[in-house]
């Protein structure tokens, strides 16, 4: 986990999409939002959950590792940048490599875009746009100490499993205090392959 980073707390999210709108205001991808807002329990509940780039630390940035053009750079403070426009060839390797499904590809522009933790803002001490505007604090920007001071007893996870692979991230998720599993299952278990139930 990085020092000052984003903490995602799905329990507080109200699905208002302020983060989505705010992300469109970022000057490095103006007009396009890099936030994914998902509804994990559609039809049963209005629960919602924002996903930003998790800025993977170990293995470091799978998206950058698979980039044939070396377009995705990682800064010394652990922020995984979006593709360098002069290098990116739009091959979408990064989209396939990301375990969290974060990068977006603009096929016409042959360019990958993704959340870069609002580097133009965070480099000057401002918070990222999404966490700045989030009305509920479902996206919180600060250190773990800041978060714990605000929300006594809060539990966070920055380690996720995808099958046998464990990914440690720079961005952390708040997990229910009574259900701390470590590491957190990163994806839903596979239940069907080609239409066949594989759980039996």
């Amino acid at each position, binding site marked *: 986990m990085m020092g000052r980073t984003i903490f995602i707390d799905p*329990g*507080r*999210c*109200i*699905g*208002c*999409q*302020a983060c*989505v*709108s*705010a992300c*469109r*205001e970022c*000057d490095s991808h103006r007009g396009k939002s890099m936030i994914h*807002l*998902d*509804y994990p329990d*559609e*039809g*049963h*509940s*209005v*629960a*919602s959950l924002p996903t930003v780039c998790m800025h993977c630390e170990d293995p470091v940035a799978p998206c950058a590792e698979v980039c044939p053009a070396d377009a995705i750079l990682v800064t010394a403070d652990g922020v995984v940048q979006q593709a360098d426009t002069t290098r990116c060839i739009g091959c979408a390797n990064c989209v396939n490599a990301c375990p969290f499904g974060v990068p977006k590809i603009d096929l016409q522009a042959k360019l990958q875009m993704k959340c870069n933790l609002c580097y*133009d*803002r965070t*480099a*000057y*001490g*401002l*918070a990222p*746009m999404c966490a*700045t*505007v*989030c*009305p*509920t*604090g479902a996206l*919180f*920007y*600060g250190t773990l100490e*800041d978060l714990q001071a*605000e*929300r*006594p007893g809060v539990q966070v996870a920055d380690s996720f499993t995808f099958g046998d692979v464990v990914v440690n991230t720079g961005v952390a998720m708040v997990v229910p205090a009574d259900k701390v599993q470590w590491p957190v299952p990163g994806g839903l278990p596979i239940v069907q392959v080609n239409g066949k139930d594989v759980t039996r």
Partner: protein
Amino acid sequence: MTRQYIPLDPSIAPPGTRNFRDAGGIPADQWHADQNGETLVPTHCCFCGVQCGMYLRVDKGGKVFGVEPRNHDINRMRLCPKGINAYQQINHPDRLTAPLMRRSRDEPFREATWEEALDFTVSEIRRIQSAHGNDAFGLLGGASLFSEKTYLVGKFARVALKTKHVDYNGRLCMVSAAGANKLSFGIDRAGNPFSDILLSDCLLIAGSNVGECFPVMTQYVWGARDRGAVLIVIDPRETSIARTADIHVALKPGTDSAFFNAVLNVVIRENLVDEEYVAAHTTGWDEVKATVATYTPDRAAEICGIPAAQVVQVARAFAGADNAMAWHARGIEHHSQGVENCLTVINLCVATGNIGKPGAGYGTITGQGNGQGGREHGQKADLLPGGRSILNPDHRRQICEIWGIEESELPAAGTSMMEMVWQMQRQEIRGLIGICNNPFVSLPNYKTVKDGYDTLEFHAQFDFFLSETADNAHVVFPVTTWAEDEGVMANAEARVVKHNKAQEPPEGVRTDTWVMCQLAQRLGVGDKFDYPGSREVFEELRIASAGTVIDYYGITYDRLEETGGIAWPCPSTDHPGTPRLFEDGKSYHPDGKIHLQTVEWHPPMDPYDDDHPMSLTTGRTVAHFLSGNQTRRLAGLVEQTPRPWAEVHPSHGFKNGEPVRVVTRRGSEVFPALVTEAIRPDTVFVPYHWPYPTAANALTIDALDPRSKIPEYKVCACRIEAAEQIDEVPAPPTAPGQAAYPEAQVSRTDPLPPTAPQGRGTAERS
């Protein structure tokens, strides 16, 4: 440019922002690659009653091109999607930039000069008033106007038009709460600031979808919960804050007063009443006690369709907490018993001694940006500036002295907005000026509204986009957006905040103030309407409100810029304002007591029968605002929520996205079904921001609360049935020669079922 602010208590701040800096303190050239010459103008959002602070980003050419969060006391950098996208209105291609005119509705609009449009309007006013009397011409204002403009609307109606028929669209918003507050406390505003929520131990939110309608308030709700506060939500739908509430009471629409009476019944039965407080500060307690005696939990369970145990749970949680707060909004106010519903909430707060303490009190959340300020200074049919009554001879004399007219010239009380529409149908009102409102979408029973407006001999509208209502007018005046003029608004806490001018209006656009002054000049009272701008109007407003309950005298533009907002009453320029009322236990009635009122529940006005067994309830969605005139053209918001839907329970057998016809006694419309377990099986929900034929308000009933005259939007009898074809959302109207903005067309070409964009979705897991 570091801003100084004086919060209520510096140690009380919403969570998550203590270590935030806003960009206002950072030299503009340091944090943006392309920031050459960019300036940040501090102002507030134009939308809801929270009134979040924001900066508008202005480029070298003096044009607004973006938004930047601002660390203001109210919102601490937080914004919702409406606030973030609001700036896109300002230089939008659909802006009206020349007056539109036509002699009859059979002709298309043509662009006219300002002279021509103003002269034609005045000649029509004169023609109608000389033939049918002054009261045959009406004026309808709006609560999204700055307070200075709402003051002018009231003055313009009574001094220039000399008509009693003036009202405003806040009549559709929170007059029920206003009526209840006046009856109980003698003052019409929330009792506590938002920051008191952070100190409360139990928070009761009734009829308010805070997560979608006032998203930035949720940071206060969560701040309270982080401290361990209990959250109680009363709502027929499982909204985003109800989802995580400790107690969610999903009662049947239109049964709120029965529920709250029953809660008070349990509070009395379990000896949880603050007897000392009640004895010292209230009147009418014995009558209230006798009334609620019949409202047992079992009776409430039957009326409200909830488990009786929930009534007891709520009573124990609320009355058992050290400091409890109740906030309510349109969900309990939009009823033919709206005032009574609010009274039962007030009774509960007062009986448990939860009034006028940090973390304990009540509040009503205003829907419109100036919903609070819009009714304070004479825009309402029965009120004069400073909340004075138009029926009180002393009050009339005071205002006539300020306005320089004879008391005999001041008209009597007028009628409410919906009643004015009925009067248009009967040709009692033959001419109308509408200022920044859109009744074709926002009033109930659309067919009646359209009929009323079609009957008008002359109709003029002020607006910056061509609204559905303006599209029916003879004259449309293109006026400024909120960022092209300065002025004050009062938010839901009665905190007066100042909006600043960020850019010059486009060529051909004038301020509402200028247009009213020009009309007044042509009507021969120009000497009484000589205002170069908002500042001069505000000075007069201050004097006009001095000495009343709603005292603005101590509030000046300079003070507002220094402090970031002052809560009225503020009688002198060294007075800090009054963020929290009743700290001394005294109400604003002459006897200083809180007058408790008895309430008997009665069924809603639209009776259920075999043909109409279900309840239709309406409301908002987070991406749009009221009639949608300001939001249905902004690409980001249209993309988020392109069209309305009908929210139904899976038990009716509909699949997500299937056409479902909602039928009431006023008509029927077909929406895509949004199938979710987050709504009662006997209830259907449709958001109301869209025009006919996708207007929820073509289905709603125009029954009014007898006291506040608020329409009963929140409940009418309906049935649902399968249908073939979903009704298409019409494109927003545009001025002649203008093509509709392509992004706004998304809603027409995208008949996809509403799933994730509304955060609800399908009951079938994909």
